[in-house]
């Protein structure tokens, strides 16, 4: 059974979802969802722990590699799958009370089925070694997230979902056009096979067009600055639980696909030396960091504030990727993990406020620090992580990014990065001030502390941002191993 683990990661949630539609009993479905999510998390842990013996590949249907679909597990994919399934599991443990309040009862079993499908899609994008399969899983995760977002309480939720659907479909179509062009040139869909055949093809115009389409398609899915317009509304109007999960995982998996695209299929030489993608990425990410951070400062809704901050944080990941050395790539991958924890945790805090206060406007949250002290304190800790204060996870990734920028002598980038952290201080502090130092609003005055069933998972995630701020063997260590194997540096030994 051990050798079947790579496919079980996908098959278990994929089969559970239709089963839930058949069962239809919401209590049972909830229990099974939690069971499935934790099982999948267990499998990803065991997959990652087996990485020290080298990468695993699994042939679906027993068809050998370039002809059939293969699933590849290496450090990078195992690491991304680990935090996707881990956050999926912890968020679903946190979910019941919030979903009870925000989603209509008749939709619960479909809600949980969509949640699992979304997770299947994200995990599938990580594990598959077949380019067309990436597109299929991208669509599975996107379609289910459109459905999940549209279940939000207000009438603006379906509109936000439709907006996301239209833009997201454009992104997915661009990605598909790119795949089609690559297939036309190489006659294969297997990523490793495409990579080896592309070396023979001197960069033709088709290859350029394919690369451009795929890059722009993924930029839309990642919500890179000028293409981010779908994200704030989608995150703001989705049910809290959905925002926690999607904000923590979905954009990171697209970043993962982008890393694969550049470092496995097209080479960094092609992307960064023949084409000026590195300077373009750097410009996009720096402008994005500043514009989105400033936009976050002016928001009046706490969820929208975090959504803009997510757009900014994607910039840091891309900045790391654009440096194209082990240090930068390590920083980018570490930040994917750290930001998933931090933003997942912060959105979980917001979910607690949504449950007890019922409004997410900053003016209604005034003085909530007195009535909801534990929830508010979680915001402070998570916020410190987002800013990048030492001893928090955010500091680790920003430090790695900074040292990498300095080693490449990118002084302006280093200075701008530090300045942008100050903007994060402003928008996080603004909320802290409202929570602790403002006269209480009438909604906050009567609010109760969030239930333990939600606070404990929130504190596990928020606490882990401190843990991974001090102890980086399993975050930056694995990211380093992943970066080395991507850049083709043979690594000796296991983690570190």
């Amino acid at each position: 059974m051990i050798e079947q683990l790579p496919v079980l990661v996908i098959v278990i949630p994929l089969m559970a979802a239709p089963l839930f539609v058949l069962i239809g009993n919401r209590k049972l479905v909830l229990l099974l969802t939690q069971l499935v999510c934790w099982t999948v998390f267990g499998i990803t842990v065991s997959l990652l722990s087996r990485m020290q013996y080298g990468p695993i590949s699994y042939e679906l249907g027993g068809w050998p590699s370039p002809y059939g679909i293969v699933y590849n597990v290496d450090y990078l994919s195992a690491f991304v799958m680990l935090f996707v399934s881990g956050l999926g599991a912890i968020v679903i443990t946190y979910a019941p009370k919030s979903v009870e309040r925000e989603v209509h009862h008749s939709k619960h079993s479909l809600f949980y089925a969509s949640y699992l499908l979304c997770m299947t899609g994200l995990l599938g994008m990580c594990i598959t070694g077949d380019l067309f399969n990436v597109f299929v899983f991208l669509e599975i995760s996107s379609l289910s997230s459109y459905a999940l977002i549209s279940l939000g309480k207000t009438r603006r939720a379906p509109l936000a979902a439709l907006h996301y659907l239209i833009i997201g479909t454009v992104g997915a179509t661009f990605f598909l056009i790119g795949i089609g062009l690559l297939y036309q040139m190489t006659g294969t869909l297997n990523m490793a096979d495409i990579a080896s055949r592309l070396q023979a093809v001197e960069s033709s115009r088709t290859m350029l067009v394919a690369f451009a389409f795929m890059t722009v398609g993924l930029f839309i899915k990642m919500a890179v600055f000028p293409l981010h317009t779908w994200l704030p509304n989608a995150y703001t109007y989705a049910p809290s639980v959905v925002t926690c999960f999607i904000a923590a995982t979905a954009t990171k998996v697209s970043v993962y696909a982008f890393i694969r695209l550049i470092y496995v299929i097209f080479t960094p030489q092609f992307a960064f030396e023949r084409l000026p993608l590195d300077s373009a990425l750097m410009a996009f990410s720096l402008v994005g960091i500043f514009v989105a951070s400033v936009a976050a400062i002016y928001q009046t809704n706490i969820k929208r504030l975090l959504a803009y901050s997510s757009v900014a944080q994607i910039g840091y990941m891309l900045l790391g990727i654009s440096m194209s050395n082990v240090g930068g790539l390590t920083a980018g991958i570490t930040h994917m993990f750290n930001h998933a924890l931090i933003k997942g945790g912060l959105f979980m805090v917001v979910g607690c406020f949504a449950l007890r206060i019922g409004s997410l406007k900053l003016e209604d949250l005034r003085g909530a620090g007195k009535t909801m002290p534990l929830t508010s304190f979680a915001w402070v800790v998570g916020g410190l992580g987002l800013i990048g204060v030492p001893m928090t996870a955010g500091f680790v990734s920003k430090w790695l990014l900074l040292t990498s920028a300095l080693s490449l002598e990118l002084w302006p980038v280093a200075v701008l990065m530090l300045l942008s952290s100050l903007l994060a201080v402003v928008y996080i502090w603004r909320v802290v001030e409202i929570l602790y130092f403002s006269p209480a609003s009438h909604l906050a005055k009567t609010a109760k502390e969030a239930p333990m069933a939600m606070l404990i998972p929130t504190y596990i995630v928020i606490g882990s941002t401190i843990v991974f701020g001090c102890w980086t063997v399993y975050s930056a260590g694995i990211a380093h191993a992943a970066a080395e194997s991507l850049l083709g540096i043979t690594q000796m030994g296991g983690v570190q």
Partner: protein
Amino acid sequence: MNSFPIIRVITKLLIPYILLFGLYVQFHGDFGPGGGFQAGVIFAAALILYGLVYGLPAVHKVAPPKVIEKLTALGLLVYAGTGLACMLLGGNFLDYDVLKHGILTENHFLPEGQHLGIFLVELGVGITVTAVMTMIFYAFAGRERVTS
């Protein structure tokens, strides 16, 4: 549509053949052109035609929305269940070679191995596509008209 007897009679004449053709495309798909997706669409076309001509309540009697909703999930389960069965029999996921049973297999009377696998998988696809197509029709046809 009550006042169009010709349309009603022709529809009744056509529907059995559409269904039969759907089944042909489904089950002959592993030898000729066709397969689960096309067959599902053809099969659903018969249901939709019936709904268009005889009205939504009539087609709801033939294919209740509740059942259709469950069928969308069932088809997917048939597909994935085939894969799971292959794993339980010792192969990889969807490795049909292990689907051997040895009952009435002379002259390919009953399929086995790759043939049986693709047959079951396409059946799953057919069920889901039929159900989804019908469901889309129900969703649009069942919308109440906004009176201004």
